[in-house]
């Protein structure tokens, strides 16, 4: 029953008919309509995508983009007073929480990978990151090779976790793997000299460094292990909701609004400490804005 509704909604949206409200609702949109509320999964230390400000409220580039999506949901469902709930998630629990219905969409720093697409859906990419290493300058680590025999931290459940394991094999170096609960936890290990390097998306490391007590003490080094697209995560096979999110995000990218938001979060001072990440838009991201895609890596 549910499936046939999905298929119907899919057909309608592909031939360009806007679905006459209620009857065709399915999946997440139907759930939101019935509950009168939408639950947004957010991160706590994915600076500047989705993190907590001085008052412990979730803010960031991804949160701003998602606010636009929520506006679109409100007008789609004709529910201007739709309640918006927030639920903090971690790298480990975000996918199960999406599947069990605790969150309706996740706005953070989640890599869209083929492996994850078996379990959840992704919107078009709103950011492209490179996986690199964050180190203390006084540690002397400059490249992957320098890590031999050293403790290296990564955040549990992230794709970097798999990357370092593969790289470890390929380069035949032996590192001691440590795991942080969240990105800040991992960074704390580098900051306190517990780990020699933090292998993670460069922008997240940059955000953590900028917010640290002594930003000058850290550096991002080494080659890019891989480029990874970030997308809004949603439930698998939920075509109507995905269409709505994609339409909203694509619209923002085409209109130049997405770039404005990018400037706001990446090129200007941001809360809570008013630091400026000075992280200009990469050519890959410009290309992704010009031709939005939801292709996953690997």
């Amino acid at each position: 029953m549910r499936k046939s509704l999905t298929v119907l909604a899919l057909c309608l949206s592909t031939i360009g008919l806007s679905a006459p409200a209620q009857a065709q609702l399915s999946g997440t949109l139907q759930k939101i309509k019935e509950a009168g509320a939408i639950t947004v999964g957010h991160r706590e230390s994915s600076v500047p995508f989705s993190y907590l400000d001085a008052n412990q409220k979730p803010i960031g580039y991804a949160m701003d983009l998602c606010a636009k999506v929520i506006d679109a949901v409100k007008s789609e469902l004709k529910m201007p007073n739709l309640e918006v709930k927030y639920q903090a998630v971690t790298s480990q629990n975000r996918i199960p929480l999406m599947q069990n219905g605790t969150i309706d969409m996740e706005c953070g720093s989640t890599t869209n990978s083929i492996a994850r697409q078996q379990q959840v859906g992704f919107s078009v990419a709103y950011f492209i990151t490179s996986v690199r290493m964050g180190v203390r300058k006084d540690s002397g680590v400059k490249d992957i090779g320098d890590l031999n025999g050293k403790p290296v931290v990564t955040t549990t459940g992230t794709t970097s976790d798999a990357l370092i394991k593969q790289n470890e094999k390929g380069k035949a170096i032996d590192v001691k793997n440590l795991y942080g609960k969240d990105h800040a936890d991992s960074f704390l290990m580098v900051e306190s000299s517990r780990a020699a390097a933090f292998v993670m998306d460069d922008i997240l490391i940059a955000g953590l460094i900028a917010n640290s007590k002594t930003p000058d003490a850290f550096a991002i080094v080494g080659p890019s292990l891989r480029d990874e697209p970030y997308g809004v995560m949603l439930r698998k096979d939920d075509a109507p909701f995905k269409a709505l999110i994609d339409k909203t995000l694509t619209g923002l990218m085409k209109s130049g609004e997405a770039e404005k938001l990018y400037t706001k979060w990446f090129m200007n001072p941001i809360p809570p400490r008013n630091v400026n990440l000075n992280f200009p838009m990469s050519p890959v991201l410009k290309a992704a804005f010009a031709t939005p895609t939801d292709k996953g890596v690997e």
Partner: protein
Amino acid sequence: MNYHWDWQFFFQEADDGLKYYEWIVSGLGWTTAVSLASLVVALLLGSVLGVMRTTPSRWLVAIGDTYVDVFRNIPLIIQLFLWFFVVPELVPNSIGIWMKQDLPYIVTAVVGLGLYTAARIAEQVKSGINALPRGQRFAGLALGFTEWQTYRHVRLPMAYRIVLPALTSEAMNIFKNSAVTYAVGILELYFQYKQIIEKTSQVLEITIVVTLAYFTLAFLMNRLLAFVEKRTRVPGLIAGTGGK
């Protein structure tokens, strides 16, 4: 329920080349290692503290009592965090760096869990010694034993046998409490549980398997100690037969 059951995934290869069931086996190994090592620490330290609290020395009693008060009134996870994050920052820098970079994490975990459990064991040992008739101490002293010898040869052998059922339940608790050491970097069973959930999202299967694994550990520990209890039972005492 549109849940997709899949028991096969345990035999699939994860991205580190091991199969998921091997993650569980390795987690079980770490859980057992941390638990048993902590148990040894807790038994030794807990016995010393328990004895201290029954001596005539006011100072020894005060030290023992303070220890128990401190370690029983702070949650385990916070104690572990203190050992892991706070202590290395308070000691001289060179020692701090050594603690953070060279000291294996299992040592921190065992110290944390062991010292936490020692407070509980000290309570049991103390009540075991206090449960003995005073006459046993006097009899020992009358035989020319020193205070220490009355503990060594008379009171402790009895006290342990009396509190063995309570120690059994502490020994089982330590296996459960060892799950918290995931927070200080031990790749034990609960850590692997979280990892496998993230990688596969097969929440129900993995919950069933890991729960059964914890059951088995608790059961084995229980049987082992029941055996010890049977072998060391004091004839003629009601307390010696307790605990089933």
